[in-house]
Every structure is written in C-alpha cells, then in structure tokens.
C-alpha cells in the first residue's frame, strides 16, 4: 500500500507542498518574530521593490510574507481541528445508523439529511455571525456543516461490511453487538474514512478562507482569506495583495486533494485500476 502511494507522482508532489506549508507555519514565529500585524514599511510596496520584503507590504505597511506565514498556521489548524470534530460527530452517528438499522437508522438519517439540505456555507455564515467570529466558533461551524457526508459514507460502508459473513460468524461466536461493531466492522471502514478526511481538510481550509474573506475571520488571527478580503477594494492598484494569499490557498488545497487521491488509489487499488484502465 505504502509502495503504491509512493509511486504516485501527484501524491508525492502533494506531500512535498504540504510539508513545505507545515514547515512555514511552524517556523513563522522564528522567521518573523514580530508577528504579522506590525507595520514594517510604507504601505502598498510592490513585491521585490525593497530588500527583505519579497512580497511587498499591504494597505497598512505590514509585511505580506509574514502575514502569509502566520496565515498558514490558521488555515492548517482550522482545517485539521474542524475535520477531527466533524469525524467525531459523523463516524459514530453513521456507524450506529448503519449497524443497528431500523428506526435508529431512520432517525439518524433524517437528522443527517436535514443538515445536508441546508446550504452548508450559508449555515456556516449564520453560525459564525451569531456566535461572534473566533477561531473556536469558526472551527465548530465548519465541523457542523462538514459532518453529514462523513455520516453517510460511514453508514454506507458499515452497511456493506455488516452484510459480510464474518460479521455473522462473530455473532455466532457470542460477541456482543457493540463489540462486533467496534472490533469487526469499523476497522474495515477505515480506508475510505482516511481518504475522505484528507479531502475534508482541504474543503475546511477553503471554507475558513471564504468566511474570513467575508469578514467573519477571528480578528486576532491572521488568515489568507482575510488578506484577500482586505485587499479586495484595492485590487485595481495593488493586485499582489490578493494574488499571493490566493496562490497559497490554491497550493495547500491542491496538495491535500492530491494526497487524498493518492491515498484513494493506494487504499482502494481495485477502484483506481478501474479509473486508469
């Protein structure tokens, strides 16, 4: 499996980009010890015009490169944590629904369907607007709009695994229902969950940046979406202020998608062979 993943060029490019982004995020306080908010020069300096400011300065004379580095922290943190929270909601719900069936399934799926019908970005906006934008509320809002697909996936996987004969064998061995679900069924649904999780981190980063772009970012955290939103009105004169953070988002999200596809090919070789045949 690992070999298949490593031989996937796209996935390895994704891993390289992601490692670079993580490195920048971790090292941000070392490279730019004064933080992203400090004024360092005249505002609106174009890239490469002054030494030490390769990406120029923003509307308030702050270092764009420093902002990008600190923005990486926020993007990765929100992406990762919100995905974990979404998994914590979606996996148990989907597993219980798929395994126990009947009215449990009916109830859980109506609940999931309800959340899936609501336009997810609009719900995220409403939640963050009402609960005041903080990193916590943003993360939670993203988790709340992202869990339904997880629940559906886990439910479908559990339902298909549940029908396999080794589950019957475990029942005949006298194992209790919860034990069968946890020790026999769930371990067999891990690969698709991993694939989905990697794609969810990407989507969460996009969502976070979109919220920040609309002015719903945590005012105490520098984020890529906020940078683009703040530079929106000066796009005619200072295009680079919105251009670079955008590139950062594209690269990070692309990297995660590439990794997700690579994982999918490696973990479900049967499907991927179909895809290439």
């Amino acid at each position, binding site marked *: 499996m690992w070999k298949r993943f490593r031989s996937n060029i796209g996935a390895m490019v994704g891993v390289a980009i992601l490692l670079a982004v993580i490195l920048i995020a971790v090292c941000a306080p070392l490279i730019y010890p004064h933080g992203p908010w400090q004024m360092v020069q005249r505002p609106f300096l174009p890239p490469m015009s002054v030494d030490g400011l390769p990406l120029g300065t923003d509307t308030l004379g702050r270092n764009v490169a420093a902002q990008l580095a600190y923005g990486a922290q926020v993007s990765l943190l929100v992406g990762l944590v919100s995905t974990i929270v979404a998994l914590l909601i979606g996996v148990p719900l989907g597993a219980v629904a798929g395994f126990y069936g009947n009215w449990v399934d009916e109830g859980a799926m109506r609940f999931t369907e*309800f959340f*899936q*019908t*609501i*336009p*997810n*970005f*609009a*719900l995220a*906006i*409403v*939640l963050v*607007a*009402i*609960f*005041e934008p903080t990193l916590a509320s943003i993360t939670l809002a993203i988790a709340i709009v992202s869990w339904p697909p997880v629940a559906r996936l886990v439910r479908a996987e559990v339902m298909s695994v549940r029908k396999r004969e080794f589950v019957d064998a475990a029942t005949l061995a006298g194992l209790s229902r919860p034990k069968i679900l946890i020790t026999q069924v769930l371990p067999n649904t891990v690969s698709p969950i991993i694939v989905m999780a990697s794609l969810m981190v*990407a989507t969460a980063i*996009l969502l976070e*940046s*979109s919220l920040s*772009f*609309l*002015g*719903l970012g945590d005012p105490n955290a520098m984020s890529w*979406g906020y940078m*683009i939103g703040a530079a*929106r009105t000066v*796009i*005619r004169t200072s*295009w680079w202020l*919105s*251009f670079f*953070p*955008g590139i950062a*988002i*594209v690269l990070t*999200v*692309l990297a995660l*998608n*590439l990794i997700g*596809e690579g994982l999918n090919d490696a973990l479900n070789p049967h499907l991927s062979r*179909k*895809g*290439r*045949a």
Partner: protein
Amino acid sequence: MSILTAILGRLAKAALTLLAIAVLNFFLLHAAPGDPAVVLAGEAGAADEQMIEQLRERFGLDQPFYVQLGKYVGGIVQLDLGYSFRQDAPVSQLILDRLPATLLLTLTAFGISLVCGIALGVASAARVGKASDSALTTLALLFYATPLYWLALMAVLVFSVWLGWLPGFGYETVGAGYTGITRALDILQHLILPALTLGLFFMAVYMRMTRASMLEVSQLDFVKTAKAKGLSGPAIRRRHILRNAILPVVTLAGLQAGQLVGGAVLTETVFAWPGIGRLMFESLAARDYNTILGVFLVSAAMVILFNIVTDIVYRIVDPRIGATA
C-alpha cells in the same frame, strides 16, 4: 408509485424541513449573545429604547419561551420574515427584490457547469490515459482547489481591469437607461464573468464525477454485451454508458445545489451583483440578523426546490424507480 404521489410526498417533507429550519432560526436568534430584542433590532436600532420595547411586545419576548417560538414560526409560515431596521423594510420584501438576480446567476452558472462538466467528463473518459485526458483532469483538480472568490477577483483583474473586455461590477450599466433587447444584452454582459467564475468550480466537480462514472460504467457487463453485438465505440458510449453514467451525476448535482447558493454569496460579493448573497454580505457588517436568517431560510428553500426537481428528473430517467418490482 406514480410520480404525482412521489412529488406530494417530497413536498410534505420539504415543508417539514423548512419548518425545522424556522425553529432552528429561532433558537439561533436566542443563542446570540445579548438581549434578543437588541439582537433583533440589529445595530441600527440599538440606541432606541422605545423601539426595543415595541419589539419586546411584538415578539412576546416577555412571554414564555414556547409562545415566543409559536409567534416566530407562525410569522414565518405567513411569509413574514421579520423587519430589517437597518434597511427599514420587511425582510421578505428585501429578499423578493433581490431574488431574480440570484436566480439568474445561479441557474446560468448551474447550466454552464452541468453542460460543460458532463461534456468534458465524457471527452476525458473517452481519451482516458492520453495527454488530453491528463490535461483536463489536472485543470479540473486546479479549479477544484481554487477559492471561488479569489478566482472571481482575478477574473475582474484580468478581464475587466487589465483587458477591459467585460464589466466587472454590478448587474447593469447604471444610469444608461437601456430598455428591451439592449438592456438584456447589457445584463448578459454583466452576467458573463460572475456566472463563469461561479460555474467553473462546479464544472470541475461535475467533470470529475462524470469521468469517474463513465469509466466505472464502461467496466460493467452490459457494455461488453454491447461490444459483442458489434456496436461502435461512440455508439456504445452514447447509447449505453452515458445514460447509466449520468444518473449519479444528477444525484450529485442535486446535492451540490446548496453549495451553489453558498458560492453565490461569495460571487455576488465580489461582483456587487444585487442578489440575496450580496444582501447577506451587507447584513453581516450591519449585524442585521433578521435579514441574515431570512436569506438563510430562503436559500434553503431554493435548495429544497432544486432537490425536488432533480428527484423528478431521476424518476423520469430511471425506469427502476417507482416501479413496484
């Protein structure tokens, strides 16, 4: 089961869902930090004691919780979405004024993305493994990773600011006084950039989905049967693979409708497109919660309606559904 009873069932379910969203809205209003009356009034009304008192009375904020809930939900059932003190107009009126622009934008974007997405997906699947397929899938992956609003900004920068080809702002040329055909053409010109940028992301989604679905269906047994009959490659793709492959794409398109509306908020914000998305953005800054929640409810209603339409389309395309096997 006939299509009619199916539609009736779906409509009943849709009404229930909307009701649930109305209840959710009520709880959200009350969950917002601060006095609910002040929250309702938004920033505009915060200073006016008398108005706050009026509000308290009107929404029964001094009455038990369930009475408040009943009043709120009852109002929504009568299409009363509350009052925007910021804009000094009923929310339903504000939304109604802005809805056509949003419908025009989202439906155009949806049409473009679905048609182009499926066409490109089919083309890509037919050339699987070749350079043109790789180029298309890479491009799709790139669009898939690009934030909508950023793409919109870059489109404004390139096509409006630098090249000057298309207007990058608004719904029509303000003050030009166009009528009839000239006005329609003017609006169309303004529509191109927002619709394309909103559509590109979904085009990427539908293309990837169509491609994957085409490849999967082409492995199925009946395709081999079709080959054994002596059908040509294009005939097999057209008559056998495409129809079967498109069903999951229809389902996905229904599920994606919500995202399309969400995307409209961003696109309308960038292009100053006077739709409900832009309305929501403006209300965010003003903390006009009534309007925000109103837009939220209406966008959910749009999505539900859209889901019902895709459901009906699905029933027409697939003979297996609705037949009592």
